[in-house]
Every structure is written in C-alpha cells, then in structure tokens.
C-alpha cells in the first residue's frame, strides 16, 4: 500500500482538508478526496504541519554513545514530529573532517527515522585557532552548509571574520555559540538576583550580547550571513532587531526551554535545569517570545543535549550542561506561543520547519503542504494534555526539565517522504 489519506486535518491550523500521499509525495490536498486504494488516517480536529526541522541537535555519535546515538536521537526526533535534524559537531572525534560528517550523514540515512544533516566544526577540534576544512566538508557526501563550534564560541575575532568570509564561496553559514569566554569563566547560571543568593558563578547576559554585537558587525563588514544559536537574553533580541533593521544578513534561534523556564528553577539546585546558555529571567523569556512572534528571532531550535543520568544526579557544579528537547519542543511551543495567542499554527510551521530548512538549506524539507511536494508531515493532537514522563522517551537520555509537568499537544503521526515514522504516537 503506497497511498495514505489523512482525512479532515486542519492544515496549518486552517480549515479541515484531506491530504493524499502517494509514495514519497503529496498527491493532492483538498476537501472530500477519494480514499480508494489508500490507508486512511482519521485526523479530525488535529493539526497538520510540514515535518519539523531542527537546526540544533546533539546526537553524540561518534564518541558519547552512552548518552545518545544517531539511531536513538533520530527516533526521538521522529517522536517529536521532526523529519530533519542538524547534528552539531562537538562529537568525539569532532566533526571537523569530511570523514566524520559523512559517517554521521550515512548513519541517519541507514536508520531512516529522520534525515540527519551534519554541521561541520568551524575550527579544528573546536579549539578556535585554526579553520577546519570547511570546503572539503561541503563537498563531501554530507554536503555540509552549516558550520558551528557550538558548545564553544568562536571567540577570536579574526578567526570569526575569516570563517564568515570563507564560507561565502559555497553559500555556507556560520552558526555562532555566542559566549565571551573570559566573562564566563566558572559560570554556572545566569548572573543576577538568583545567582547572588545561591552563590553560583554568574553567566552574565553581556557575555552573549557582546559577541552577537561583534558578529553582526563583522557579518556586515564582510558581506556574509551569520546565524546566532540559542539566543537567550532581551538584550540579544534588541541587537538582532537593530542588525536586521540595518539590513545585516543575520538569523537567530531560540530554544523551547528559554521560552518557558527561568533562573528561578535553579533554586532547587537540581542540575536538570543546568544548561548553556543558562535559563534567564522572566523579562528575558517575555522578550524572546515577543521576538519569535515578530520574526526578529527566525526559528525555534531544540539544542537537544542528552546526558547520562550520572552526569545530572550530582551536585550542581559537577553536573553537565544541557537538556533533551526533541520530544517536547512542539508542546512547549504550543503552550508558550500558540496558546498565548502569539503565533498561529501557520507561523509555527514557519518557525519550526520552513525557516530552519531555509537557513540550513535542507533539501526537500520545510516545504508547503501542497500537491507535488515531498510528503514530510507532522500530525499533532493539540487537544491532548498530559504530564511529561521521561520513561517514555525514545531518546537514550532522560535529562528533561519537564518531568511531571503538564504540557499540551502530542505528535500522533510523522511522515518522512511518505513513510510513517510515528503512528498513533508510537514509533513505527
């Protein structure tokens, strides 16, 4: 059976329509389509979105297969409604050569849950001193277009300038993890009222904002585009807004957790809330939501960062930074952006599919839900309400900050080029 009829779904949250999939493509979209010869999925009341695209995922393979593998990570991605993820370069060995990026790319293809587009390191070993072979990674089978030292900042202004210039030759983009290293030595959490009381080393907003300000000016100077990873402060929003108004080619992402959680959570000293950049204040959260709504921030990216239990079941200072996010991202966006009236579902499709695919040049992803397009689709039961139970995660790791929290929405089906990777909320 190669035909599937999704019946009565609200396409991008609009009127109920039928969507007919034939093989790898969408054959027709309309009312009252014939179900002849097709498997029917009753989708009345559900929201149909283009398959989600995550520009910022840590799959940990090679090197840290105890926390995640390409297989478990892509299963988690499919569960969360994703059909493509960009895998960050901070693996062991670092994805700074054509060999490593090709391996990660092929593993994604073999497993078939979700397309994996490797991100190449900007500098050799993420050390910030010598450019990696960016051209070779671009020309490899993986076709790398996004480069990032994520986890570390490309802090040397000259190296950053050269990287921004160099990738212009093949239309690449540098994704910056904006963190001034000297200002964040020993940093454990957002620097502010809560850190002053808890006695934890501060990670000041200015350490992010100063790098973003520098990099948008560098991008303007050399005529390149730059992407800002996990923007987390109100000040960063203002800088990006200013840069865009000036015509600078900058894009920016925000994580689901920075749209929902604040540094007040750190009062529990529970390292499940330890993340980099850190959880900020309520004021920052509100500014980020507003910026995502008005388009200053282009996309939601998960920064899915799996860690084994022992790296979180300890004292705060000893714990690893990062949270898993693929399986809860859409729910958090529904709660923080849709149910607050800040975004329509059509705009969610833009922030979580079209725009990330465009920034990362993911072929065949982030396409409209219309006839002739690849059948990369996500079906969401937005009426669902349930507590997050990490035991049910497909990810190998459980370091979610949402355990026991009620979140809305559940992905019931995900289609990768017409093939269901998730059926009735379960991996196919």
């Amino acid at each position, binding site marked *: 059976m190669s035909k599937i009829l999704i019946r009565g779904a609200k396409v991008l949250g609009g009127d109920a329509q039928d969507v007919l999939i034939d093989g790898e493509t969408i054959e027709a979209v309309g009312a009252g389509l014939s179900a002849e010869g097709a498997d029917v999925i009753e989708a009345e009341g559900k929201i149909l979105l283009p398959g989600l695209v995550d520009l910022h995922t840590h799959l940990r393979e090679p090197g840290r297969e105890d926390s995640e593998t390409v297989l478990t990570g892509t299963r988690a991605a499919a569960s969360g409604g994703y059909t493509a993820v960009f895998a960050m370069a901070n693996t062991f060995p670092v994805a700074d050569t054509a060999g490593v990026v090709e391996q990660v790319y092929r593993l994604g293809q073999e497993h078939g849950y979700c397309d994996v587009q490797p991100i190449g390191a900007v500098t050799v070993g993420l050390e910030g001193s010598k450019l990696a072979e960016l051209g070779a990674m671009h020309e490899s089978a993986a076709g790398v277009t996004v480069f990032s030292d994520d986890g570390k900042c490309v802090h040397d202004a000259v190296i950053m300038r050269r990287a921004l210039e160099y990738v212009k030759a093949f239309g690449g983009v540098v994704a910056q993890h904006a963190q001034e290293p000297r200002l964040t030595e020993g940093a454990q959490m957002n*620097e*502010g009222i809560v850190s*002053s*009381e808890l*006695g*934890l080393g501060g990670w000041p907003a200015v350490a992010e904002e100063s790098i973003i300000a520098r990099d948008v000016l560098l991008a303007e100077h050399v005529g390149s585009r730059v992407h800002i990873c996990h923007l987390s402060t109100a000040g960063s929003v203002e800088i990006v807004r200013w840069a865009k108004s000036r015509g600078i080619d900058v894009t920016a992402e925000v994580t689901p957790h920075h749209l929902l959680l604040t540094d007040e959570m750190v009062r529990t*000293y529970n390292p499940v809330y330890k993340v980099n950049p850190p959880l900020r204040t309520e004021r920052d959260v509100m500014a980020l939501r507003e910026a995502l709504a008005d388009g200053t921030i282009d996309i939601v990216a998960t920064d899915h960062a799996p860690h084994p239990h022992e790296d979180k079941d300890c*004292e*705060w*200072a000893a714990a690893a930074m990062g949270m898993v996010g693929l399986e809860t991202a859409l729910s958090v966006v529904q709660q923080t952006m849709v149910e607050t009236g800040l975004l329509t579902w059509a705009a969610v499709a833009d922030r979580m599919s079209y725009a990330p695919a465009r920034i990362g040049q993911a072929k065949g992803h982030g396409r409209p839900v219309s006839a002739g397009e690849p059948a990369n689709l996500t079906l969401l039961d937005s009426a669902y309400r349930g507590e997050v139970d990490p035991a049910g995660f497909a990810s190998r790791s459980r370091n979610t900050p949402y355990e026991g929290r009620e979140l809305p929405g559940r992905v019931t089906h995900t289609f990768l080029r017409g093939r269901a990777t998730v059926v009735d909320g379960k991996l196919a």
Partner: protein
Amino acid sequence: MKRHLISAADLTRDDAVLILDTAEEMARVADRPIKKLPTLRGRTVCNLFFEDSTRTRISFEAAEKRLSADVINFAAKGSSVSKGESLKDTAQTLEAMGVDAVVIRHGASGAPYRLATSGWIDAPVINAGDGTHQHPTQALLDAFTMRRRLIGPDAGLGQDLSGRRITLVGDVLHSRVARSNVDLLHTLGAEVTLVAPPTLVPVGVETWPCEVSYDLDRVLPKTDAVMMLRVQRERMNAAFFPTEREYSRRYGLDGERMARMPEHALVMHPGPMVRGMEITAEVADSDRCTVVEQVANGVSVRMAVLYLLLGGNEPAVTHTRTEEK
C-alpha cells in the same frame, strides 16, 4: 524548625532566638567541671568534609562529643571520593551505616541542599559551609556573640538584635559567611551594611535585605559591630583590586579606623584572619576583637543546633540537671 539546617534564610526569628537561647544554656555547661551532656548518647553523627576546614570540623566534633554522640569523621581527601565516588554514593554509604545526622562541608554551592532533598539520605543534614552559598552555623555563632556582648548573656535571653547596626566588610562576592549573616541578622531585626570594593559585591545584591556602601570610614561611626571578612590574596590576580596595599588602605581595619567606631562596638572576624590584609595585628589583638570568643561560642551554638535537630522536644539542660540529682 525545619528538619535540616541548610540556609540561614530557612530560620524564622523564633527559630533563631530558640537556637541562641539554647546555645546560652550549652555555654553554661562549658563552665562546669564536667563539660559533657548525655543528650545524644547512642546517636551517630558524621562530619562529611569535602573541603579542608580544620577549625569548623573541630568545632562540630567538640560539640558532638560534648553531647555524647558517636562521631565519624569523613574527609574526602584520600577517601573513595578522591577516586571518583559521587556525593550520592557517599551519602548512601553513610545512610547504610546508620548515621543519625550528617554535617557536610562542600566546595560546591547547593551540595548540602541536594543531599537533603534528593532522597539519597533520610538523616538530618547540617550545612557546615557550601561553596559561596551559606554557612548558617557561622551566622548563628556570630549573632550569639553579638547578643552576648551587646545585650548580655542573661539579659539577651529571648531577645533578638532589633535596631543593632552591623557592618560586614570585604569579599562579599565569594563569601558564604556574608550571605548567611545578611539573612540571619535581617531575620533578627538588625540593620546590615555591606562594605566592599564594587568588584567584590555580587550583581543582584540590590535585592538583599541590607545596605551597600563603598566607603568604610563613613559607615564605621554608626556601627555596633563590624565583621571583617577574609580576603584571599589570589583575588588580586583576577583584578578584583589592584594591590594588597591598596585594599588594606581602603578596606582594611587598623587602629585609627577602629577609633572611629563607638566605644561599645565590636570587631569580629570569622577566621582565619589574614593579618596585615583586612585587619592589622593591633586590631586583631585588641580587647574589642571577639575572634577567640567566636570560636568558643561556635561550639555552644553547634551543640544547640545538633540538640534541636536531633534531641527532640525536651529541654536540653534541665533534662540533664534532673539526671544529675
């Protein structure tokens, strides 16, 4: 009172006054020929020290022994912790051995809170200093010293420190003593002023229940007690201040500055002092300096805390008086 003592901010005014009053009774025991009470006989207390701190450890140990507890000292150096054992496993090991209370000193802020709230262990946890977060028994012994000196051992019973003006000087940013003292002194009704170079005051201090000044000379004449915090020389290398000499000149306490304080005002220091840095020898050795008294009071206050967390509801000393008859 809560089951654990993690932060001075956890104590209500009545909790704090009860601890100070109990400590006063404990101090009287120290004046007897036999300084021991049977209160914690058969109970085991573990001093779990992940950070070197001879004076705090000895103070707790003395307090535990005076209450007749069995004492286990666990120093992380040379133990399984130095071989990579986690806090959780260490805690569960102690739990399995049946300890009745854990006194913990740890370099990581929040480690005692994690120990008390993660379900790793059932026993009451007493924070003996965690990172740059809290050191509640230090704040209690400081408050005890102030009450004794400013009001009197007997007159002070049942009293708080309402209206007393207390000044803390030095490295507030890295000081758990400062955080604990601000919380407790505020709870006890005192007016607290922090004095430090701006580099050693944390961002966010504006929400603390205290005043902040950069000018020691202006504050001293209106101070009932000044507490000098230790300043580590290494801070100089991280550009918190230019030189040791400049620090001493602007924020150190010497005889001339001490003379600007009211006659009754105390000079306090949590120790260990860096003589010549934040305090001159002349001041440290003067009659107004309570450093040695603070050490003695530390034992009484820790006895009171252990008694109240472990000993139940019976009065501490009257109980033993009956036994003595």
